[in-house]
Structure formats: structure tokens, C-alpha cells
């Protein structure tokens, strides 16, 4: 059921994005980066994506991007509430913290193994493994951001008669937002690195290019795919970072 839903999502989104002409996509992405983070990043996005297109890696790039986006959305949807719960209750934190330690120290390949019997080979297993691997920074930094809200501010919220929900939504989350966004940024980067590894269980995308280059000992092709991954990573990192910086209150 969940498996079908995720699969439909991934194929639908991939199909939709691949239907967009690459030139249009590149310009739109560059404009978006420019609006979010200034003209330098807009230019970087334009050049980077055009380079990928020129390398003939457009289709795998879109596949990888979709996997990253879907996994990140799932990781944030999972991580945000968990992080909030961990920040607000010491007991939850004691339960969550060791899980996070395990999730982060376990070799990432290991997550691929249990995913296969549940979801089979392909995108869904890749997403599952990626979510498990990339969610910890969002959880951790959400909790940290909320715990770091100055005591005087939460006290002010209480003094003016906030309910716990009002305090969370009107004071704690907005104050913690820059830290949370830093966590989301880390989640995106981890998701990208995991999606590449997940090519081993048939995830497709840039990872598969690397994987097949290894099997055929084609160093050039391997480097091309590797550089493409790096370019994508730099663009995603800089743009989300700039967005997080803009959220920091004056």
C-alpha cells in the first residue's frame, strides 16, 4: 500500500519533470535560485545544470533529484514532529537519542538490506533507506533549536497566557526555524549521498551511472557522473543554506 503510494509518487514526479524541456527547467531553476539566494547562485545553478545537460546526464539527474526531494519531504515530515516531541519531553528525548545514534553510526549500506524484502528492488526501497539515513539531522536540530530558545522568551509566552500549542507555534518554532533549516539542509545532503549508494538496489539515476562505470572500469564515465553528483550537491546545499539564512531574524 505505502509501497504503491511512494512508487506512484516517484514515477509521477519523475515523469512530470522529464516532460519539461531541459532548457526551460534550467532557466526556471536558475531564476528560483536567484530569487532565493542572489544572482551569484542563480548563475551557478544555470551553469551547473547546463553542464549536466551537456554531459548527457540530464535524465539520471532528474531521477536522482526526484528521489532526493521525495525522501527529504518524508524525512522532514517524520523528523519535525519527532524533534519537537524530543525537545518538549525529556522522556521522549531519552528514547529518541539512542535511536539516532544507531541510525547515524550504522553503515549506510545496511539499510538497503531490510528494505528489499519489504519493498522489493527499486525506488521505494531506496527512498526508505534514504529516509532512515537522512532523518537524524532534522530530528536533532529541531530539538536543539527548540531547546535553545532563550528562557526569557518562553517565560514571556507563559506570562502572557499562551497555551502550550500557542507557545510552540508562535514562539518556539519561529525562533528555532533557522536551526531547523540547517538540519533540513543536512538531511538533503545526506539524502543525496544515500540515493547514490541506493543505486545498488536499483534506484536508478546518477548512482547507477557510477555503478555501471565501476563494473565496466570506465573511469571517465565514472568521473562524469561523480562530478554531476557534486554539482547537484553544491547547488542544493547553497540554495537551501541561503534560504535558511534569510529566515534568521534580524
Amino acid at each position, binding site marked *: 500500500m505505502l509501497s504503491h503510494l511512494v512508487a506512484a509518487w516517484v514515477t509521477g514526479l519523475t515523469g512530470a519533470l522529464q516532460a519539461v524541456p531541459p532548457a526551460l527547467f534550467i532557466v526556471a531553476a536558475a531564476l528560483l535560485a536567484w530569487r532565493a539566494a542572489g544572482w551569484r547562485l542563480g548563475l551557478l545553478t544555470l551553469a551547473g545544470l547546463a553542464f549536466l545537460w551537456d554531459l548527457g546526464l540530464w535524465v539520471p539527474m532528474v531521477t536522482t533529484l526526484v528521489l532526493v526531494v521525495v525522501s527529504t519531504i518524508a524525512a522532514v515530515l517524520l523528523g519535525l514532529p519527532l524533534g519537537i516531541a524530543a525537545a518538549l519531553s525529556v522522556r521522549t528525548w531519552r528514547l529518541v537519542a539512542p535511536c539516532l545514534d544507531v541510525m547515524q553510526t550504522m553503515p549506510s549500506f545496511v539499510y538497503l538490506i531490510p528494505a528489499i524484502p519489504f519493498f522489493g528492488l527499486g525506488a521505494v526501497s531506496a527512498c526508505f533507506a534514504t529516509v532512515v539515513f537522512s532523518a537524524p539531522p532534522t530530528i536533532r536540530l529541531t530539538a536543539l533549536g527548540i531547546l535553545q530558545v532563550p528562557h526569557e522568551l518562553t517565560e514571556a509566552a*507563559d506570562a*502572557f497566557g499562551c497555551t502550550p500549542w*500557542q507557545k510552540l507555534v*508562535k514562539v518556539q518554532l519561529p*525562533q528555532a526555524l533557522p536551526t531547523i533549516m540547517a538540519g533540513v539542509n543536512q538531511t538533503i545532503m545526506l539524502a543525496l549521498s544515500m540515493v547514490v549508494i541506493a543505486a545498488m538496489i536499483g534506484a536508478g539515476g546518477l548512482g547507477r551511472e557510477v555503478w555501471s562505470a565501476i563494473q565496466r572500469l570506465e573511469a571517465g564515465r565514472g568521473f562524469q557522473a561523480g562530478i554531476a553528483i557534486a554539482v547537484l550537491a553544491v547547488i542544493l546545499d547553497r540554495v537551501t543554506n541561503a534560504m535558511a539564512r534569510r529566515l534568521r531574524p534580524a
Partner: protein
Amino acid sequence: MIVTEGIRCVFGARDREALAMLRAGESRAAIMERTGTVVALNDVALRVDEGELLVVMGLSGSGKSTLLRCLNRLVTPCAGAIRVAGQDVMAMRGQSLRDFRRRHFGMVFQHFALFAHRTVLENVEFGLEVQGVARPERRRAAEQALDLVGLAGWEDKRPGQLSGGMKQRAGLARALAADASILLMDEAFSALDPLIRHDMQAELVALQRRLRKTIVFVSHDLDEAVALGGRIVLMMDGAIVQDGTAESILAAPKTPYVRRFLEHIDVSAVLRVRTLADRSAPPPAGSCPVLRGEMTLREALPLLADGPDGMPVQDEAGCHLGVLTRRAALAALARQPLREEPAWPSHSPASRSTIYATAPSIG
């Protein structure tokens, strides 16, 4: 009206044990040593009348901020009774406590506690927003409050764009906007520059005269307490050591701790002309400028310097209260005991050296 009785408050894991020891009359140090628990408040009884400006004084760690937070239950005392406007504060839970805070209290914080992600106007609206007041109505109330504190025109700025004094004006406006009857001010002006602090003190006094709010003001600065002009409660080690006007405390400090507090204050701002006047002296013959009895010595000094020695003092109704001489004024400034023979006529070197030792340094 706020009344508290027997408030005891301890912080630490073994609070029950600490409370029992406290009731048995053990010292704070002994309790700290045996249980590792801090006694923040020990048997505090306080009464604040409606429309009164009460200053709670003490060094850091004396329990004054904890006492303030007990009044709106940001801190829940371990024992004791608190009544505000006839309601039993200790019995409140959940929604009733929130309603009580919304209705009765505005609070101003030492480091402003403004929400950086909101504009000044949105900060000031906060109390009403939390209460679910509709946007146009709360906007109007917030604009009025901003006007009251002299911040009109700064509505759309962020707190980060304001200076310290303006931040605290915004903090004050936020506390005023919900029109609560009681203002709790926790070292509200301590983080401000001295000049700004004096302005804010004067403005708070003027505001209080207009709005008749009940204000509980926590401060560690006795000069600030004098400038605010209300009753003063002096705290040490979680207990009240003395309670009264600045003048009554200056006249009879109860403990060495209180005396130490008084050592560095500006006496001329505290002493009133009526207490310094020689009541037995008849009004001088002929016309001459008159001092009002409620003037502080500081206000009277320029008149005394220009006028004749020995000026008549009168009350509001124009009744003669006595005569103030320059010598009496100087003696008061030098902290000589009032109405005693001054030490000047004696020529023994010992007495002169005592005078030098106690004279305030002229800065």
C-alpha cells in the same frame, strides 16, 4: 490587590526534606549542605495595594525575581498562600491559570524578551492575539500602547532595529496593551544606559500616575527605587528584611545589610525638607521664599543656596512646619544624625578625622 502569606520556595531534587528543615528553622547554608537544595524564598508575606508602585529590592540571589514570578505562578512556591484580586492563585490549574495571567498581568523583562521574528506592532499585539482578540481591535489597542510609550511610527520595525531603550519601551507597550491591572517588572531598566534609565524611570512614574496600574518592580539599584518613589521591600537570602518608604528605611536601617545598601545612595533625593526642618524655630520675620515640606533636599538645595539661611518650610495648606538651615542641610548630606549638635565646634583631631571618614566623596 496582591497578598501573599508564608511563601516558601526551594529549588532542588530533595525539596520536601529541605522544606521540612526550613520549617524547623534551619539555616539556608545548613539546608544547602545537607540536601543540596537552594532556598529561594523563606516565609515571605507581602501586600501590594491597588494602584501602588512597590519596589522589591535585593542583591542577585536574594529571591526577588523568584518572588515576582510567584505572583503570576511562573514559579510555583512549595508552600504558602497567594491571593490576587481575591482569587486563590495557588489553586489554579491549566486554563484557569492562563485566563488569570491574561486578565491580570503584564510583564516586562530585564532583557526585553521581544520576539525577533515579529514586528514591533506584532510584539505589542501578542497578549491580545493569544487571547483570541480580532485583528483590527488588537491592532488599535497595540497602536494606543505604542503611542503611550512614545514609539508611534515604529510599528513595522523589527526589534533588532531598535536601541535598548526603545526595545524596553516596546516591552512596556506589550505589557500595557492587554490592559491588565498589574504590571510585573523584572529589573526592567537594568540593562539600559544610565541616561536612558533615568528617562524611563521618570516616564514610568508619569505613566503610573495616569493609568493607576499596580506595579511590582524588581530592582537591585536603590537609587532606582528612590527615583520610582514608591514603597520599598528589601530582601536578603529569600526573606524580607525591611519594608517602608526610602526615607523611613534611611532613617532607621534594621540590619547591617540594609545599611550597606544605603551607603552609596544619593541621600538628597530621599530626604524630604519637612523631616530636616527645625520644628521649634518660629517662622522668620519679613517676607522670604518658602520651601514646601514635600520637596526633596535635592530640589531645595538651589533655593537654599540662593536664599537667606534659615528658610521657612510649609505644607500644602500653607501651615508653618519649621525652618531649614543650611547647616541642617549640610549635616544631612554629610550623614550626620539629624538634629544633634554638629561636631564642628570641637577641635580635637579625632573628631575631625571621623568627619572626613564619613563624608561622602564629592565626585
